[in-house]
Every structure is written in C-alpha cells, then in structure tokens.
C-alpha cells in the first residue's frame, strides 16, 4: 500500500493491444455514431462484436460467463482508449457498463447465464428505462406500474429520454410494483423485450441532433422470470449501481481529442502573422482546459480505484460526474473563444473549423450537467453523503 499512479505491466500490455486495434479498426464513421450518441447503427453494433472477436472484451468479467475474471481496470482501459478516439460508447454501453453489472449482482442464475455472455460478446444492448415526465431528478416519483397477473407482470405507463431504445434489443425498465408504499420500497426492475406488443417508441430529437425516445407501455406483458432480483427492491438496486455507473459513463479521456484539436488549431492558426499560440490569453485558456482534464482523469481514476478495491464509495463518483460535466461546458466555452466567430459554423459548412466538432460539442454540453442527475442533486449528494451535512 502506497501512493501509486502507474499501471501494471500486464495492464499496459492490454492497453497497447486495445490501442493498436482501435488505431487500425475504429473508423471515423463508427466513432462518430458513438461520439454523437446518434445511436449505433449497423456498423457500430457490428464493431462491438468485432472488439469481442479480437479478444478485447470481457476481461473484467467472470470466467464462467466467458470473461477473464480480472479487475475492472481492464474495462476502464478499454473505455478510456475508445474515449480518446471519440468512441466512448462503442461496446453497447448500457449493457456493458451499466445493466450487466446489476444482472451479475442481483440477477438469478438463469438470467446471468442468458444475458451476461451476450453482453460480453457485444450481441445485445439495452435502453435505460428510468426517467418519466414527472420523474427527472426525482426518480422516485415514477408512475409506471407493473401489476402481477399469473406468470406475467402487466406494465402500463410512459418513459422518456430512453436513448438507446430504438436500436436495442431490451429495455431495462423500472416500474412500480407496489403503489401503496413509498416509492423507494415499491419499485422493481425488469428486462423487457423492446419489441414486445404494446410498446410504442417515439423519437425525441435533441438540440444537438441526437435521437432519444419516449416510450409508451400499453398492457405490456412481461414474464415473471424477467424480474431482476427481488420484487420491490428496484430502487435500491438502481442506487446501489449508481456510483459504478458514473465510473463507467463519465470518461475523461473523451475530452482529449478536443484538447488536441484546439492545441493544433492555436499552433497552426495565425492572426496578423502571429500564431494564436503566442497570445497569453489563448495559452491560459487552453492550459486551463488541460489542467481540468488532468483533474477529471485523477478524480475518475480515484473513484474507479475505490470501486475495484471494494471500498465504500460515498460521493466520489458523484464528484467525478459533477466536475467532468461542468468542465465540459467550461472547455467548450473557452475553445469557442479561441475559434472566435468561426466557432458557430456547423459541420459541413464552408469555413467550419475543426470539422464543426466544437460547435456540436457546444450544443451537446447543455446535457452534461443535467443527464444522469443534475449538478444540483450531485452537490447535495456530495454535501450530505460525503460531508455528513444534515438533510432538510
């Protein structure tokens, strides 16, 4: 036990292997599907399988389901290397980085046997079915109901912001199985066939052009063996998974391409014959971006390290989440100041700098401090769980 910021030789070997593979195989087109959260198209889905075929997926998963039984750092390495190349969401990320872990922790033996190998092999993806119109930050306020009826649950209600659902095979659904008790004690989790009768999926397009979905359930029958873990424990499972999910989803390496871009731009762009890189204000702004990316990486590394060492996380992944998401907004604002007027030109426009990616990132960045919990809720969590300040 001692401070150590290095990675092991075998971890580095895996990293190099992933890097070599991605440098060769991760095309702009596939990266882009992932990068923009536009929804993985056929090529994107196929790439997850390709990653598996190349022997790069599942190293951190149990041997009995096809993994290598190694610590989570291998998955983090995989995601970081993808992130550096605009591909942070490639390996069917809801399945691989979120619900798979809850299935492992809480699912029945048959459920694990059915789903985990498919997840490791990049075969399936899930849509995340938590948010409802009246249940945003306040997830416990959800209204969707699942009522037992023989061998089934019958589900009715509406979800919103279910990003992957238009192409994923399954819906990872939270619904109320007991409406008489506090929501914390009356929610259950289900795996629902996303194409089951009674489900209607409608696209919602975001301001940055991503597709997400609203989903309507009308008397949808879900077999009882698709209940995850115990009935009415769903909210607890969701909270239990939250820290780990943040560790997988907020990937600081994703910002390195932006940093590299703006560094190159400042070096290679002149005004009145002088490179922008010589202007102290430009230098200061870019350096601050770099410092904050360094910081994001360290915060994420620390929270991830806690996770794989089974240390109790109180607010560490929340700190990463709040910091990274706000950093993203500061980054894009500073970078746009360096691009000046040109910053507003979109991809495909004449004269658009950096292929319009910073412009896209600007639009996208409004989501970062909202999605998966607002910064406000995050700070409250940090204060109450991290510092022991009293609840209201």
């Amino acid at each position, binding site marked *: 036990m001692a401070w150590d910021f290095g990675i092991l030789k075998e971890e580095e070997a895996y990293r190099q292997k992933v890097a070599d593979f991605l440098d060769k195989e991760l095309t702009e087109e596939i990266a882009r599907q992932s990068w923009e959260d536009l929804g993985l198209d056929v090529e994107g889905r196929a790439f997850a399988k390709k990653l598996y075929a190349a022997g790069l997926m599942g190293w951190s998963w149990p041997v009995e389901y096809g993994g290598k039984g190694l610590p989570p750092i291998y998955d983090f390495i995989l995601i970081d290397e993808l992130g550096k190349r605009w591909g942070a969401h490639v390996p069917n990320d809801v399945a691989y980085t979120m619900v798979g872990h809850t299935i492992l922790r809480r699912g029945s033996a048959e459920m694990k046997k059915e789903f985990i190998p498919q997840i490791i092999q990049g075969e399936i993806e899930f849509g995340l079915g938590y948010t409802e119109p009246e249940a945003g930050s*306040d997830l416990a*306020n959800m209204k969707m109901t699942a009522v037992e009826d023989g061998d089934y649950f019958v589900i009715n209600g509406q979800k919103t912001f279910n990003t992957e659902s238009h192409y994923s095979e399954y819906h990872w659904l939270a619904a109320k199985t007991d409406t008489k008790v506090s929501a914390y004690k009356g929610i259950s989790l289900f795996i629902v066939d996303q194409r089951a009768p009674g489900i209607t999926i409608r696209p919602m397009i*975001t301001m940055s052009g991503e597709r997400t979905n609203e989903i309507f359930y009308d008397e949808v029958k879900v077999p009882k063996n698709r209940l995850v873990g115990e009935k009415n424990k769903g909210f607890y499972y969701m909270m239990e998974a939250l820290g780990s999910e943040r560790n997988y989803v907020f990937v600081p390496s994703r910002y390195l391409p932006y940093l590299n871009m703006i560094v190159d731009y400042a070096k290679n762009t002149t005004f009145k014959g002088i490179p922008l890189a010589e202007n102290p204000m430009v230098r200061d702004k870019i350096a601050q971006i770099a410092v904050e990316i360094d910081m994001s990486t360290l915060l994420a590394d620390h929270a991830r390290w806690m996770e794989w060492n089974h240390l109790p996380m109180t607010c560490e992944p929340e700190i990463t989440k709040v910091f990274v998401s706000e950093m993203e907004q500061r980054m894009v604002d500073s970078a746009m100041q360096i691009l000046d007027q040109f910053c*507003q030109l979109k*991809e495909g426009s004449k004269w658009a700098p950096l292929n319009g990616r910073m412009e896209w990132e600007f639009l996208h960045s409004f989501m970062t401090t*909202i999605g998966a919990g*607002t910064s*406000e809720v995050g700070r409250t969590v940090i204060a109450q769980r991290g510092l022991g300040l009293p609840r209201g």
Partner: protein
Amino acid sequence: MDFTYTEEQKMIKDAARGFLEKACPNVEWYLDMDKDEKGFTPELWKGMAELGWMGIMFPEKYGGIGGSFLDLVVLLEEMGYAAVPGPFFSTVLLGGLAVLEAGTDAQKNDLLPKIAEGKCLLTLALTEAASTVYDPFFIETTAKAAGDNYIINGVKLFVPDANVSDVIIAAVRTSGTTGDKDGISLFLVDSKTPGVKTTLLKTTAGDKLCEVIFDAVTVSKDKILGSLNGAGAVITRVLQYAAVGKCAEMLGGSQKVMEITVAYAKERVQFGKAIGVYQAVQHHCANQKMAIEGSTYITYKAAWMLCNGLPATRIVASAKAWGSEAYKKVAAIGHQIFGGTGYIVEHPMPIYSRRAKAAEYAYGNANYHRQLVATELGL
C-alpha cells in the same frame, strides 16, 4: 436621471409584443425558419414594414417616422424577446444606418424610402477570413479604380442575410495596409452584379450568415458610400449602433428566458415541491435577474449616449462585453432548470441558447470589447 420608457416607446413595445406573438407562432415555425434558405416569410416582413419598423429612425422626408435610436432599441429588445428571424437587423442597422450616416442626398433619397417600405434589403460585408480574431478593420478585399468604375476583389465572411439582400455594402481597401482604419471605403453593390457570389454558411443559430465572394465585381464610382478612404469612422459608428442593437436583442432574449424559466420553476414539481422552492433554483434565478438588470441599464445608457452624441466608445464596449456574457449565462441557467425538457429541439430554450451564442460573437465577443475598454482606460 430617468429609467423609464416614453409613452411612445411603451406603445412600440406593446405593439411589437402583440404582433410578434402572432407572427412567430410556435417552435416549429422557428425551426422551419432555421432550415429555410431565406429565414423569414414575406408575410412577416410585410407586417413589420406596415408597422413602420424599418423606417423607425429615418427622418420623415425619407419615408421614416422620425424616431430616435432609443426607439429602435426598444423595438430590438422586443425582437430579441420574440427571437424573430429575418433581415431586419442587417437591413436597418447595418445598411440603413450606414446610408443615413454617410450617404449622399441622392443615395438617401434612393434607398431610405425603399428600406422603410420594406422593399429593399441591405447588408454590410465586413469581416474576412484572415480575421481569425475578430477585427472589422482587417480588410484585404480591394477596390481598384478603373475609369469611372471600381473593380472589387475579395472574400467576405459572416455577412448576414446577403443571400436575400438587394444591396450589399462592401467594405474594401482602397489604400493603406491591412488593419488600418484609414484607406477603407464603402461601396453600395447591387447583389445581382456579376461576380458577386453568395454562399450560405451553416450556423449554430440557423441565422443566415454568408460568405460573399467578390470576383472582379465592377461598381460605378457613384456607388461609393461616404468618402473615398474615409469609411473607418462610418464603420466605427455603424458598429456602435450594431453592438448596442445586439445588446438590446440579447436583453430581450434574456428576459424571455428568465420569464419561462421562472414560470417553469414555479410549476414543475420534484421531491414533492415546486422546484422554485429550492435555494439552488432560487439562486440560479436570482443570478439571471442580476445579469439582466445589468444588461438593461447598460444597454439603455449606451443607446442614450449614442443618441445624445456623447462619447460612447467605452460604454458601448462595456455593454457588449457585459451583454454577451450575460445572455449566455442566463440561457445556461435556463437549460439547467428546464433539465432534459429544455434539451429537446422542439423546446423554446434551444432557440434562445443558440441565438445567445450567435449574439455573443456578433460585432465582437466579450474579449474583443474588453480590449477596447482597456484602450479607453489608457492601457
């Protein structure tokens, strides 16, 4: 000292609010305008002309209604509130005011009545590709004398509404070196002149900023606006009007954002309470309010100083430095409070946050204007 609108200004405000509410009916309409090549409808333009908006500060002899720049600012505030698209700003503030400031009698008699009637659209072609840092005087486009004509060559960027314009006022170098304020001239170029090529740029706000290429464009010398080589002062003046006009738009936009944000905070329930009860939300809204109060007074003070012919360089720069940041901040807070709802393209929030970004960079962002303030401080 007085912080009130005149009765006439209140009437302008009310009329504009009423007209624009109907003219810009819903978010779908805005999104259509974003996608539309022209970015506005003939009916909208006609309605605005009928209300006399284009001629609001032209003297009556030119078909205007003889108002002041302050009256125009009041109108622009409402236009920002409604986020109305179209070539009003380019036609009136960039084009009309340049003609009014610098035109010969003949030019004024020719153009101003047509502008006031809504029958002539103008714009100003100023910044160029080499201005990687905003600098309106960094002009490489040239006009070379050839008999009674001039031949213009060069490329202009970020020219608003050039694609629908009838006349493009081109700022060109007729002497001196790039970066000088001296040696610049303005030409009234008919947009249909051979050699003028306009390409729409794709922008965050869906506004109609264009690249305009002047490829050996021949313009007769009587199309010079103002004095040969002496346009620097005219451009400075027009850009002051434009910066303050943009501040007024930003102010109106901020007000609208705060209005819908506060309304939503009062109505949206989470954790059993209206979210507007929570201190974090209250303090966000208080920050919107503070930013907007500031924007209001500095915008009107700058306009008042311009109106009264007082030295306005510092106050105009301060106003645009403040306003650019304020609108952006107000919009970001709006998004934060609306949450996912406000991130959907059909929501009003993105209309405003996208325009806030465009406005931030129009006529110089905060960094640019702070450098001007510094110069005014003697630095």
